């Protein structure tokens, strides 16, 4: 039996760098652009995505169709798995899938503050104080950093440097996710579209 070497068996160029060599310090992880653009990563992710989608479909009650949110969650989990838990956002995604989000956020008193009233109250109060442009700019930057921290999963209370690093990795991963999902969606919908055409052709063939 002749077989094709499976594409997934080739080692990823970025993986050896992550492994620790004995007797040496760990080499720096590759920058996110190169790390997430390798073909191997795309293959890995696409494979995981397909598996996840299939699992989602099997898990959902057969009569009803899969919800888009379930698909999105599956895709994000697949992405986080492909990241191998090396980044904070991937860990945050995976851990928050297992346990309900509310459980994770329960504070000592058991009360979960849903509305960020405090955050919204502060800026108007501080307008009088921020006279110098330097302070104002700093505040703007801080605000934006906080906002970025809220957007990237699991990066709410990170210092700026780590946050920026996580954000870079997250952006690169998201781009790969979008690329792969787009290819998959287009392929599948093209396949689905051609079904009725083929049926017509066959009917015509049988008739002639």
């Amino acid at each position: 039996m002749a077989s094709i070497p499976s594409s997934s068996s080739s080692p990823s160029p970025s993986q050896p760098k992550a492994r620790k060599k004995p007797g040496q310090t760990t080499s720096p992880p590759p920058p996110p652009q190169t790390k997430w653009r390798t073909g191997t990563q795309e293959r890995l992710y696409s494979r995981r995505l397909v598996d996840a989608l299939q699992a989602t479909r099997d898990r959902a009650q057969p009569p009803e169709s899969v919800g888009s949110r379930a698909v999105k969650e599956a895709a994000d989990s697949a992405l986080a798995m492909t990241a191998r838990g090396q980044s904070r956002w991937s860990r945050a995604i995976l851990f928050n899938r297992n346990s309900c989000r509310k459980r994770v956020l329960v504070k000592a008193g058991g009360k979960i503050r849903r509305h960020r009233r405090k955050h919204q109250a502060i800026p108007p109060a501080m307008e009088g104080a921020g006279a110098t442009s330097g302070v104002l700019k700093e505040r703007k930057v801080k605000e934006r950093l906080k906002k970025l921290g809220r957007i990237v999963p699991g990066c709410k209370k990170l210092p700026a440097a780590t946050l920026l690093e996580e954000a870079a990795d997250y952006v690169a991963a998201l781009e790969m996710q979008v690329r792969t999902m787009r290819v998959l969606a287009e392929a599948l919908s093209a396949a689905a579209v051609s079904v009725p055409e083929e049926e017509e052709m066959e009917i015509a063939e049988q008739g002639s």
Partner: protein
Amino acid sequence: MEDEIHPLLHPAASPSGASFTALLGLPPSRAVELLHEPTFPSDPALVDRAARFSVFAAASSAPSPEVSPPPPPELAKKRKDAGSGNGKAKIKKGKPAEEDTDGENKLPYVHVRARRGQATDSHSLAERARREKINARMKLLQELVPGCSKISGTALVLDEIINHVQYLQRQVEYLSMRLAAVNPRIDFSGLDNFITSTTTECGRLTIGNTKVGTELDPQQQQAAWSEVGVSDANQMNNSATSSKRTQSQLPQNQLQQFWHVDLLNAQNHLQPSIWAQDDVAGSTVPLLVFDRVNPGFGIFVLSLCPKLSSGFPIGTIVLVPLLEFLSHCGRC
């Protein structure tokens, strides 16, 4: 702050006032040299003295005399101590700040070049290191996000980054909606090979002449399989019709799925030579057709005529997942 610097820069200055030079225990001239030295001091004595006065995590690199700039130097820790008397001077000049951020990942200490005219006390050095770290990461992000390189100003760049991340997340949501809509009609078993082939290029192809019968269950040969994309339209139609006729075992959607999924690529890439090898001649034939460009793809078996016996020699390529699929389909 300038006053602090001048004694350091002037060789004639006494070392008593400047804690910096006192730390290293060197004459001021040597200290100044250190200050401006672009390369890591290769003098073993200097390195040893430096080792005593700064805290190093990687002790391995500290004592080696042939330390040269390329290997990661020790990084001096930024301590916010008010007292600069002890050897907490991070004055381990050696490398420009950009390499520090790379080296940071390996070692906890940061090398910072104290530039001329800037303060060298612990606080400002620490702050400067921190700022440079942040700026380096910011530059990385700027490169990642399209259109950010032109924008100047941290706040606006961060704005762009936030918008880009939100845009990507919205794209993911939209695509997941599309996938959910497409999902019900598609069965995923064996689709992963298709996926891997569409997203990447496969160059190689190994074809062996094998007997189909030996690989497949005889029982499976009787089943109607979904069909490979065909270069010859006649064959396709013939096979299609015959596959429909004999199709009792295979569920309809699986049949269609492979048909159409393969059809996409087959029309582009199929190797007519594979077909030419076999005595197809318009009749349905058990074949595992392989697609040169998309190896994962071509593993579709034509509908098998019951009359064809096993042992039909063909050039085939069989992938393991295909066999799994075959066994799976044989059971259904």
